């Protein structure tokens, strides 16, 4: 499945890029994220719990950045193992374009789920993936908006 979306981030492009690469910010914004660790320039390891309705599955995964074009775009390849629940993998293309003082963040996410989750939840996977992507990008927007407002007030 594939989904696209857009957010207007009230930060300049450079600052938006830095925030997107800040593990502390990612940890707060990825829904259900428990730990995230940068293991190399382009690799992160994370654990998260995905809770949807009666189901709750813990995923251990890794994210790899590729085709990095600072500060314009990158591709994030992710892969997670959820034990008996199954697995999830996919990639996200993120593009940043300046829009006067702010930055337009566009994303295209492709995701695939396999194993037991896919077997019993096929009718729900699209909705869940869309929800997780929306939650992440809107939490990210809210977080950096709050930070931007805070530092502006502090100056």
């Amino acid at each position, binding site marked *: 499945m594939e989904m696209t979306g857009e957010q207007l981030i009230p930060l300049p492009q450079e600052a938006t890029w830095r925030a997107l690469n800040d593990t502390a910010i990612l940890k707060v914004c990825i829904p259900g994220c428990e730990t995230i660790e940068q293991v190399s320039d382009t690799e992160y390891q994370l654990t998260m719990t995905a809770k*949807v309705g*009666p*189901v*709750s599955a813990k995923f251990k995964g890794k994210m790899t950045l590729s085709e990095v074009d600072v500060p314009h775009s990158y591709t994030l390849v992710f892969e997670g193992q959820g034990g*008996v629940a199954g697995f999830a993998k996919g990639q996200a293309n993120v593009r940043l374009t300046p829009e006067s003082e702010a930055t337009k963040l566009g994303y295209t996410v492709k995701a695939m789920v396999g194993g*037991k989750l896919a077997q019993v939840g096929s*009718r729900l996977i*699209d909705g869940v993936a869309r929800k997780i992507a929306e939650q992440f990008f809107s939490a990210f927007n809210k977080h950096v908006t709050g930070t931007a407002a805070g530092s502006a007030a502090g100056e």
Partner: protein
Amino acid sequence: MRAFDYHRPATLKEAASLLRKNENARALSGGQSLIPALKLRLAAPAALVDLGAIEELRGIKLDGAVLTVGAMVRHSEVATSRDVAIGIPALARLAEDIGDRQVRNMGTLGGALANNDPAADYPAAVLGLGATIHTNKRAIAADKFFLGLYETALKRGEIITSVAFPLPKRAAYAKFANPASRFALVGVFVSEGAGSVRVAVTGAAPCVFRAKDMEKKLAANFAPDVLAKVRVPPDGLNSDIHASAEYRAHLITVMAKRAVAAAVAGK
């Protein structure tokens, strides 16, 4: 399944306190979604708080212009209740067509609402009748209860106690069911009440919603034909191996027309 604690409190207060104290405890009502998830190891709560022994969550009451159904009332009880048949026959027929016989004999109204499965039937009736959901803390209007995919306004430790349905002048539910699961690919509940028309759609989107354009047309003239050209746009509708978003969008109009026709005919 993994080991977990099992509680069967006799009072609502005790149940709420058990759920509040333990973040990983889940309330168990009819168990028709939660137990299969446990069996598949897709959920591993530390404790289950079974609501089955709490007397105040039971019972159906028809009182003047309001039908009140307890949270632990099973679908089969709603389907065969004399009070429901007199007050809101459309609700009895909806309950009669939920899932299969096993699900109807175990599943409960409160459980279905708290779970808020995107394809469940009851949310359409609760939203389509403008019912009020009562909990151990407060009363929540249907319009404020269903927030998103499996998301409701319920807080942790909050338990649905009953649902109060205002009696409509006429109402009906039409569903296009998945032949295997009997879940709604699209289900539409329409009602005409005191000065208001409601159209609630389940199965089509991540969460039940009201088709306001349809409501406007029906408020002027409560007849199936006025909906012929009203389309809910497919953007944001569910798309899966069973049906595309475009197909579901089409089905909404078809099911809404059928529901209005049934309501008009009084069937």
